[in-house]
């Protein structure tokens, strides 16, 4: 299978399987090597990296919510150059595309970072992460800054707020792919300190909201869409493809059950093959795919 998740043209990114991790759910590609068979994935995306080092947020960082978790980390990272020094040889050794998630801080830093990444053979594409309260004008400018400095595909991960306006704007500015969406920003009371904390929301509750956005944006904008948000099962991922996504990103379920990423990837590999030969999507409910059958066999073995 070959799935192009970018606009056709020179900045092209083709995946074997339409499933990857989401930025921040997977570290820099090193941590789950003993658990997940990377060759089953379509690509991997690094944790968010900024041009300069960032330190972490102070105070509460994790707030358990009803059916979700709120995380407020401040996106700590050692900065682009240090990350490249440490992980370049790992990324070179991997047989699948590596996408660097670049935190879009300032125009200048985005230009410098994009130029830097353009030279790196181990990097196949850039995913730009935008501030959650960005305007479409700023978003357009930041994407323009990246695109002028690299010939690699530039994916843009949209914030939930103002996603439609920003989708239009960054498509115009040259984004190769729209990743819909970053975890929605939320505010909740930290049960330990009693203070209101703002952060990102992860969990199945995100899926209905983002699934709807994917449908809207896929219809509205002529750029391939990657769906991301609350995918916790193969069925969740298939729902995104049905709604118009070319591929999906799996996030926080990896923390709880790393193997689920591989399970979803194996299942969707089969789904795409079948869908393109005109099978009914409805045949593909849980319990039908090869993976499910294998899972069942494993379960039976364990129970026996």
């Amino acid at each position, binding site marked *: 299978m070959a799935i192009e998740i970018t606009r056709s043209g020179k900045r092209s990114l083709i995946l074997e399987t339409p499933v990857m991790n989401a930025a*921040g*759910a997977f570290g820099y590609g090193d941590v789950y090597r003993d658990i997940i068979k990377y060759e089953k994935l379509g690509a991997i995306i690094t944790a968010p990296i900024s041009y300069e080092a960032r*330190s*972490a947020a102070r105070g509460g960082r994790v707030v358990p919510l009803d059916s979700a978790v709120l995380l407020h980390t401040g996106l700590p990272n050692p900065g682009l150059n240090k990350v490249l020094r440490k992980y370049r040889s790992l990324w070179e050794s991997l047989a699948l595309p590596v996408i660097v998630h670049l935190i879009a801080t300032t125009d200048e830093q985005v230009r410098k970072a994009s130029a830097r990444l353009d030279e790196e053979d181990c990097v196949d594409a850039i995913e730009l992460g935008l501030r959650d309260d960005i305007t479409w004008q700023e978003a357009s400018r930041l994407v323009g800054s990246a695109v002028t400095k690299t010939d690699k595909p530039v994916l843009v991960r949209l914030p939930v707020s103002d996603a439609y306006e920003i989708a239009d704007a960054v498509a115009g500015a040259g984004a190769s792919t729209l990743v819909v969406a970053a975890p929605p920003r939320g505010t909740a009371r930290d049960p*330990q*300190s009693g203070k209101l904390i703002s952060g990102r929301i992860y969990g199945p509750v995100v899926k209905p909201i983002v699934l709807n956005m994917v449908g809207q944006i896929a219809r509205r904008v002529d750029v391939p869409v990657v769906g991301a948000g609350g995918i916790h099962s193969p069925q969740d991922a298939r729902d995104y493809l049905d709604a118009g996504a070319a591929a999906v990103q799996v996030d926080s379920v990896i923390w*709880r059950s790393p193997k689920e990423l591989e399970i979803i990837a194996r299942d969707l590999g089969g789904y795409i093959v079948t869908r393109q030969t005109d099978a009914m999507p409805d045949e593909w409910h849980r319990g039908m795919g090869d993976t499910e059958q294998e899972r069942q066999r494993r379960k039976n073995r364990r129970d026996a």
Partner: protein
Amino acid sequence: MKETRALIERIIEVNSAIQHLHLSFEGSPGRIKPGLSLLVGVADIAHPYLRESWWPVSIKDDFIVVERPAKERYEIGQVVNALGYIGKPYLFRRNLRNVLLVAHDTPPTPLLLTIPWLLGNKISVTLVLTGTARTYNTEHLDRRVEIIRGDEGFTWPDQVMNAGWADQVFVTTGGADENAAFRMVYDHFETLRASVQPNYLFGVFRPILPCGVGACGACWLASKRGAAMICTDGPAFDLTQMVR
């Protein structure tokens, strides 16, 4: 990092506050040392999207014992899903003779696995319980451990003597802000000793760990030696290296 499944083989009600679970593992449980914890996902019991750290308190040939609050409900035969042992073992000095363990406003559970190892190596152990930890029932602990119950705050009788006599101190704390608590601990030890030397005073950090493998960034800690992740580099950090 290797996912593993464990079976609850026995449940012992130790006292009204705590229970001990005997866990046996599919395959080998691996080498476990004081400081490591099991990152466990228990369907329906804990939060569905967050794992919990389970602290072993003793190790037998074919099972380990973990200490859990008595109010949680488990069943014999229940299977728990663990993301392996996480963290790095506590670093003990060579020529160690006296170790001080301190639990303030939280049960001393993360410190208890040190006790058999330390006593086995003829190192004397003092356990100080302050704040709400004062009510922790210690009848199940080895009699050779000296138990000191302190005050409501972070003070106890003979604290100056204990701090001077100890070669190493490991502290676990409860409360809303772990960083603030450890700053308080550090300041307190500075009043007890002329100066706090490196490799003497360790904080055992226990935030919620969403991933436990260094992937999510939620447990990032700034130290004077550079950035660290509590889940992979912790739980114990030298408090002289803490960035204030």
